[in-house]
């Protein structure tokens, strides 16, 4: 399989792309079915706003001239997800995101400048509840697609998908993963995000999806809640797919207290003044919550067994590559 997208016509009319997009369609239908049955309301997320999620590693946001105001295309729906809990207790959205990732990520096989997230937020929930939901949602989606003939066409080894357990995924802390990586001779920064090579390494050694929990504070955005018992550690998680496919999902219990959010904004180098509307809402009170975002194209790539995540997009945009 080519490592870069072909022309739009060639890509869209290829039997592989058609099969992948049908699987993606089934993923969305299964996700909506599952979450709706659990009492979630689907909201349509905003595309632009005065501010967006700053928690994307080294990626530039896209500025939009909004009647003379500097607006941003959404890099994630996180701020709006928290705000939306003032309307409904359980919400989800299929959110488009744009992140101008560093060009080096064009060769990771798992970064797109434009992608979608299945974004879920639950009022009053802790990190455990969000993880429970994610580990129940994923098997539901897997079961919904595993018998599709498209997977045969894509030559996906479905034995590994059939081996995905019904919940109770493995859980490992960031600290223990760092220790393991060091023992494998990989120089992982203990204060930071699990790097891309390490993630592939861990994912390749796994036979089932698993969670990495409790990331250090300097690795994530201001909205991931810090543990009261274990300062410097966040109440968050990533869900890692097996077979080398890497991260599918990030989530956390959210910080919702005003003073803590302002302080954490400074710790993440942000200037609180630009978050005016969000901080006004937080100051007046928003519900505590937990939630997660699943990368739709990454999930599709995993389910279809694709070499590259761009194959899971109708109009793929690789970082640094100008394409339709």
């Amino acid at each position, binding site marked *: 399989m080519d490592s870069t997208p072909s022309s739009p016509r060639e890509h869209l009319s290829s039997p592989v792309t058609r099969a992948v997009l049908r699987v993606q369609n089934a993923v969305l239908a299964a996700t909506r079915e599952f979450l709706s049955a659990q009492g979630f309301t689907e909201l349509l997320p905003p595309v632009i706003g005065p501010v967006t999620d700053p928690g994307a590693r080294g990626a*530039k946001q896209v500025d939009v001239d909004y009647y003379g105001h500097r607006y941003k295309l959404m890099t994630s729906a996180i701020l709006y997800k928290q705000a939306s809990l003032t309307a409904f207790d359980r919400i989800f959205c299929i959110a488009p995101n744009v992140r101008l990732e560093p060009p*080096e990520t064009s060769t990771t096989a798992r970064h797109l400048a434009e992608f979608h997230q299945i974004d879920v937020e639950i009022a009053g929930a802790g990190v455990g509840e969000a993880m429970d939901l994610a580990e129940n949602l994923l098997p539901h989606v897997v079961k919904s697609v595993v018998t599709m003939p498209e997977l045969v066409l894509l030559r996906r080894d479905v034995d590994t998908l059939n081996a995905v357990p019904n919940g109770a995924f493995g859980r490992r802390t960031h600290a223990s993963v760092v220790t393991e990586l060091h023992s494998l001779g990989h120089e992982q920064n203990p*204060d*930071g995000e699990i790097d891309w090579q390490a993630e592939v390494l861990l994912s390749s050694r796994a036979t089932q999806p698993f969670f990495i929990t409790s990331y250090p504070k300097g*690795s994530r955005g201001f909205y991931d809640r810090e543990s009261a018992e274990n300062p410097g550690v966040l109440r968050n998680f990533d869900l890692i797919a097996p077979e080398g496919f890497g991260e599918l999902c990030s989530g956390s219990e959210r910080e919702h207290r005003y003073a803590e959010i302002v*302080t954490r904004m400074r710790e993440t*180098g942000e*200037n609180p003044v630009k978050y005016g509307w969000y901080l006004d809402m937080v100051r007046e009170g928003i519900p505590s919550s937990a939630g997660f975002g699943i990368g739709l194209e990454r999930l599709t790539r995993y389910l279809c067994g694709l070499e590259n995540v761009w194959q899971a997009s109708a109009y793929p945009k690789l970082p640094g590559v100008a394409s339709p």
Partner: protein
Amino acid sequence: MTLRAPGFPEQDVRVRATHGPAAIFPELTEYGTTLFGAVAESGDRLDSARLVPPSFMPRRLEKLIELGREPMYDAVDLTTSVGGFQSALPLYVSAFGSTRVASDDLGVAAARQAGRLGIPLVIGENVVPVNGYGRIDGATEKSLLARIRAYGEELGEHSGGVVVQQSTEDADAEVWNLVYSDPATQPLLDTGRLGLELKTGQGAKPGLGGMSVLDSTSAVADRFHVDTVFGTDEVLRCASPGTFTQEILRQQIRLMRNNYPRAKVWVKLPPARDVADAARTAWEAGADAVAVDGAEGGTGWAPTGFLAHVGLPLAECLRRLGESAGDLLVSGRMWEGTRVVKCLALGARAAGLGRAALLAADTDPVHGLENLVRCLELELRLLVSALGKYSAGAVSAEDLWWGDRAN
């Protein structure tokens, strides 16, 4: 009959009584043509210290044995590592700030020469919000990317590096994200020669952020605090120094390492009374370098009171910092070799040229900075060899005499 007050700064009081708050600043007419910074008629404590060579020089004997001849000053090795970069000299060009002085072609001229010299270059505060970003409105030669490109075009294979500052307001413009993700900077990233500097303050105005004077109709006015203190069409634009605690500094550095794993991380500190604590925090969090701007430093517009009375002098910063746990970079009135050698002797890894670099580029945009640095280079060789030592890092506190004032 006019009231008189002999022995009292009568005239200064009258200026304030006449002009109001505008009078706490230097003359507005000097803005854009004058480089500001603390003025010390008689020099500061570093100036009064003397370099004192010994009679007995065991290191010279080592060099003599190595060379098989009496070592001359050309035997001094001045190459060093500066904040994660190889550098031809224990020098770097520090950020010029956003004043009108540095916004002209001088920034690009200085960048080009720094690249040729193979010494690191810091590109400074508010370059993006003031002058726009090169990628979007590609024409502007004043931009950040123009300086990076000019530096990169001249850079040799191994030494040097570009460091891009970001202050609290710059974060709104995502200066680092822009630089890190821009195709133009990839050659620097690929050779490990891009750095990012977290700006927490500056020498000229410890406790304050950058200040500049703008036309009130300027497009950037709405993104900063703006003061109409002058009572004219010109306004004072104030950046915030940002709020820092030990935990905020630690986490910001960790986030920089997390978000920009291929870039070096520098931290700029003001000459604050807890400069040693702040530097230790930065190094422990993984900073590749800590840059300290003595109160004698700075090019920027500042209230005259700050220029003369606020912040620790560089000598005192160095005393408080003591033995460094990482690369310490210092700036403040650097232009000739003795001050640089004194700072190296007190623990600095390299010295930053600010006003001197601007003046040199202003004197001769093509070779001015190179000429100035070549003077420095020869002085450094002469001074270090006079101390019986043969590398920039070998000078130490024993090489200094403070007169009757203990440091």
